[in-house]
């Protein structure tokens, strides 16, 4: 009962803040709203018993990507100006794209075979994820690592002017 209440509260938080990300005219408000969307999604992962993914969501998206987004906004040339706005453009194409994505998602939700877990006790997923990453999916994992390393070296190269 209480769990249901919390679930719907999290859903409301996620959806309302995600809508605010898109609808807000102020860039920094969109970024802040994204914070609540990310936290809401982490909450939804908790309800899917994916504890490790939920914490990873917070570490990567809130602690990393959102900080980068806000830094990006603050490092624009109008740094001391509080109001940086963004307008909606190309509404027609945007609406078309949104509807297509929505249709795709709805089709996927309806057709995918959902597993219903009956035991309410959370089972740790960390060890399982670790074993899968290091045994079955080692190559994709390493490729992703190399890609990130390349991005890191590239960023360092771009940051060093004149060399």
């Amino acid at each position, binding site marked *: 009962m209480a769990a249901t209440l919390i679930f719907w509260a999290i859903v409301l938080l996620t959806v309302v803040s995600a809508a605010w990300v898109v609808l807000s005219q102020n860039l920094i408000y969109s970024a802040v709203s994204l914070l609540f969307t990310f936290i809401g999604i982490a909450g939804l992962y908790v309800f899917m018993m994916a504890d*490790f993914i939920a914490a990873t969501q917070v570490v990567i998206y809130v602690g990393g990507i959102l900080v980068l987004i806000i830094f990006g906004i603050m490092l624009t040339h109008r740094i001391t100006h509080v109001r940086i706005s963004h307008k909606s453009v190309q509404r027609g194409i945007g609406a078309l794209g949104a509807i297509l994505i929505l249709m795709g998602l709805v089709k996927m939700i309806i057709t995918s075979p959902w597993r219903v877990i009956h035991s309410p006790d959370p089972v740790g997923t960390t060890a399982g994820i670790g074993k899968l990453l290091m045994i079955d999916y080692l190559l994709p994992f390493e490729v992703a690592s190399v890609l990130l390393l390349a991005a890191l070296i590239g960023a360092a190269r771009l940051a060093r002017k004149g060399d």
Partner: protein
Amino acid sequence: MVDYLVVILSSGLMSNAHPIVVFITAGILTALPIFLFMAFFALAAVYAERKVSAFMQDRLGPMGQGAGFHAGKWGLLQTVADAIKLVIKEDIIPAKADRKLFILAPFIVFVGAFITYVALPFNQVIMAADFNIGIFYILAVASLGVIGIILAGYGSNNKWSLYGAMRSAAQIVSYEIPAALSILTVIMLVGSLEMQEIIMAQSGTIWGFLPNWFIFNNPFTFLAFFIYFISGVAEVNRTPFDLPETESELVAGFHTEYSGIRWGFFFLAEYAYVFIVAAVASIVFLGGWQSLIPGIMAGPGWGLFWFFAKTGFLFFVMMWFRWTFPRLRVDQLMKVCWKFFLPFAFINILGVGIWDLFVR
């Protein structure tokens, strides 16, 4: 803890109430002690900080002397008076600030600190919730504070606030990495992220006399403790890493424009983070509630004592740093993190892996 309270309440006092009311009551009963503890710890920590700094500088610190109202013996009530002053002080929001962000920022910083306490084991039994991913949860939600700090700096519409916030965010994001990698060395040895299991793995002795804490376990975890602790000091922006607040350059950094209770929230959160860094260091590397002499003084009451003794000692070391070391420059700060701590943290992980395979 909440589930436990729900069971107790619904079978006893609140047997007729609606389940949601019982659940909310249980939640409040779990959360309120954490809040009170945070407030009390901030008061005690400020008093300790003032006294320690005074003794290190050959002064007396707050003594509360004089006729009429005075702040108790040895100035014990000084911070209480300061807290009351903060609460009744005028709340000022600058006219050109971004009102919404300005109001939101202290709450994000505070909530980030508050929800971290949920996973802290104070002794064998006192713990709000023992997650599967305890330590990872703490590292994850502690990163919420960064967003609040950036918003405070940006929302204030003040160049000092903004510079303070940028420095603070860059510093926290950088030092999170060696801190997390240092904790990873211990997680590799334990094979679990659960807080109580990490503490349980540290029972017993090494060579018959040293407590089997991870700091003494092998040379790599010994080094990892110091990397974690120094990175932790940097993460909470304390001297010698207090660049975000440099009084001589930036007034007060990201909270320059804040006053009254809003500033109070930042203050409370700052000391809460200090406590968390000391507590995590003592849990992961110093055995948490495990006794200094294994087997002796081991009950839950003593557990509480050992936890607070270790955490308090680490907090004292932080104060010691603060009144001993001069502040680092920005380039030195980044150099320490990326060129020394990060490579050593990686070597530690490799070393612990080799140690675990061949030596143990």
